[in-house]
């Protein structure tokens, strides 16, 4: 067999390049000679490598000579090269099948599983040397591509106008906000560093309003964020607009879905994110204001105003603010962001579309099995009891439950597999002659046996159940949060480095 090598062309701000990088790490870990070319500057390339925990060599292509020589159209593009650097295979964008075929070409095991939460495929971005340079002039009314947005206008309040009453009427939701005065917004912008305030960080669905740094700062101020929160809010704004997350659908659905923010890594301590008792409630300024800033951005920039575009049948209290941090200190397993592909010392924000938390009290059981059985029963009820395979779930384990489970030798993977095997709906519940949700899909359901009873398996795979540790060390109360529609046809969880 000829000696082959794998070369990837990447950009540091391309979501598809970020998506593919953990898979390239996995290929490199199987002793495949992987290397990459970054089309960006030295600093951003170094930062990208640190954030993504890149485990293969990366060089740069400052004049785009290589991009021209290889005629790169899209990033990422993977090239399988032989000893003479002749191209054996070209693979643009992200494609799980192609990644596994490439692994096989090197005689190695597949690296992309069907149920790891990533889409089957995703197109990439335009190679840097082919990018259009957008100026200020002639921007269309709905410009989805330029990287520089309009300057925010300034509103002069009349003398005697109460700024709180004005803001209550003009912006925000049904709670008062801090008036976004020029001075306060300037403070937030200074904390964001030496950046162009008109830089478009993302376009927020469903109206695709430009979230420029300035607009993000104004909403951060209104939510009560301290200026230093900008470093978390900027990547969070990118994450919420990630097409895999599908905020467009989430903001327009009649379901309960609201975006839950989960914070991981050192930023929890640096900015005071709370992860112990009362984690879901009104306990810490950082949690409450970050969650609230995200909601204000969705409403004010994205345009999903409650009862205008957002027509949720019952809504969700999380639409005021919905932000927790993981209690990594009480988590004997790997923290969630590490499981999601980031380095342990990398701070991260993750987003999941969730219903409100459903509590699981289990104070009598003394074994992992007993605690997990209680949680499995709650898991069986998400979306609708008799509806299987559609939803996913986030399980927030409290520290006392974690201790019992861990003491019995369960790894996180064992927890997930136990819950997967024990979450189901008895087949007898489908005997009802009336039509009901879940009945039509029965042909796709898998029949399993739980405690001797024939049941339909609730979830598609163990990966449909995600585990986060949070909460106080007293009280054996965990929680189950059902998701909205998931997978490529709904919303996929996203994790972004901070």
């Amino acid at each position, binding site marked *: 067999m000829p000696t082959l090598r794998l070369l990837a062309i990447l950009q540091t701000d391309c979501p598809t390049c970020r998506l593919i990088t953990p898979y390239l790490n996995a290929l490199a870990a199987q002793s495949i000679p992987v290397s990459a070319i970054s089309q960006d500057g030295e600093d951003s390339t170094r930062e990208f490598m640190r954030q993504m925990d890149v485990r293969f060599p990366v060089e740069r292509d400052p004049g785009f000579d290589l991009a021209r020589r290889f005629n790169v159209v899209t990033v990422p593009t993977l090239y399988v090269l032989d000893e003479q650097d002749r191209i054996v295979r070209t693979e643009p964008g992200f494609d799980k099948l192609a990644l596994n075929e490439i692994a096989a070409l090197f005689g190695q095991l597949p690296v992309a599983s069907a149920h790891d939460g990533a889409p089957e495929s995703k197109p990439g971005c335009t190679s840097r040397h082919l990018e259009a340079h957008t100026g200020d002039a002639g921007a269309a009314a709905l410009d989805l591509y330029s990287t520089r947005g309009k300057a*925010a206008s300034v*509103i002069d309040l009349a003398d005697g106008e109460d700024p709180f009453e004005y*803001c209550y009427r003009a912006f925000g939701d049904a709670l008062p906000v801090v008036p976004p*005065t*020029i001075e306060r917004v300037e403070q937030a912008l200074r904390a964001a560093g030496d950046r162009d305030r008109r830089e478009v960080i993302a376009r927020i669905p469903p109206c695709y309003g430009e979230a420029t740094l300035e607009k993000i700062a104004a909403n951060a101020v209104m939510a009560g964020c301290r200026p230093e929160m900008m470093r978390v809010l900027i990547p969070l704004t990118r994450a919420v607009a990630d097409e895999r997350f599908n905020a467009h659908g989430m903001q327009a659905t009649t379901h309960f879905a609201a975006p839950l923010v989960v914070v991981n890594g050192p930023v929890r301590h640096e900015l005071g994110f709370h992860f112990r008792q009362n984690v879901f409630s009104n306990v810490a300024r950082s949690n409450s204001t970050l969650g609230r800033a995200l909601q204000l951005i969705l409403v004010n920039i994205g345009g999903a105003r409650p009862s205008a575009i957002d027509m949720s049948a019952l809504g969700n209290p999380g639409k005021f603010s919905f932000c927790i941090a993981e209690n990594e200190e009480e988590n004997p397993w790997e923290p969630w962001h590490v499981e999601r592909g980031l380095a342990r010392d990398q701070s991260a924000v993750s987003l999941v579309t969730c219903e409100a938390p459903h509590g699981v009290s289990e104070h009598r059981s003394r074994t992992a099995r007993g605690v997990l059985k209680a949680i499995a029963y709650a898991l069986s009820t998400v979306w609708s009891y008799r509806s299987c395979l559609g939803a996913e779930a986030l399980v927030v384990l409290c520290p006392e439950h974690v201790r019992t489970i861990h003491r019995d030798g369960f790894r996180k993977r064992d927890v997930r597999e136990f819950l997967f095997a024990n979450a189901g709906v008895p087949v007898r519940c489908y005997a009802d002659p009336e039509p009901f949700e879940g009945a039509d899909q029965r042909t796709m359901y898998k029949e399993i046996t739980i405690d001797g009873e024939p049941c339909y398996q609730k979830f598609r795979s163990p990966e449909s159940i995600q585990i986060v540790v949070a909460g106080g060390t007293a009280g054996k109360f965990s929680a189950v949060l059902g998701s*909205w529609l998931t997978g490529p*046809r*709904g*919303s996929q969880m996203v994790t972004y480095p901070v």
Partner: protein
Amino acid sequence: MRLVNPLNENAPVAASLAPRLSRLEGMTIALLDISKPGGNIFLDRVEHRLLNERRVAAVIRVTKPTFAKPAPPESLEKIRHADGVIEALAD
């Protein structure tokens, strides 16, 4: 007091309604199913009535892959040549 405007200030792109059809006979009508439960049952009946009672020239059936996302370009492309569209929205 001076405030920085926190709202999206890009004017929405104004879309006007397509010209209304004065008759259905001889027209090509697209039936768009967003793939919510029951949409196909409703549109089957509409198709039957359009062809048999209104004598439309043709019916184009289009199904969105998921109701949770905007229609992809390939779905819109199929609709493009129709004279009118009937969309089955919710459950």
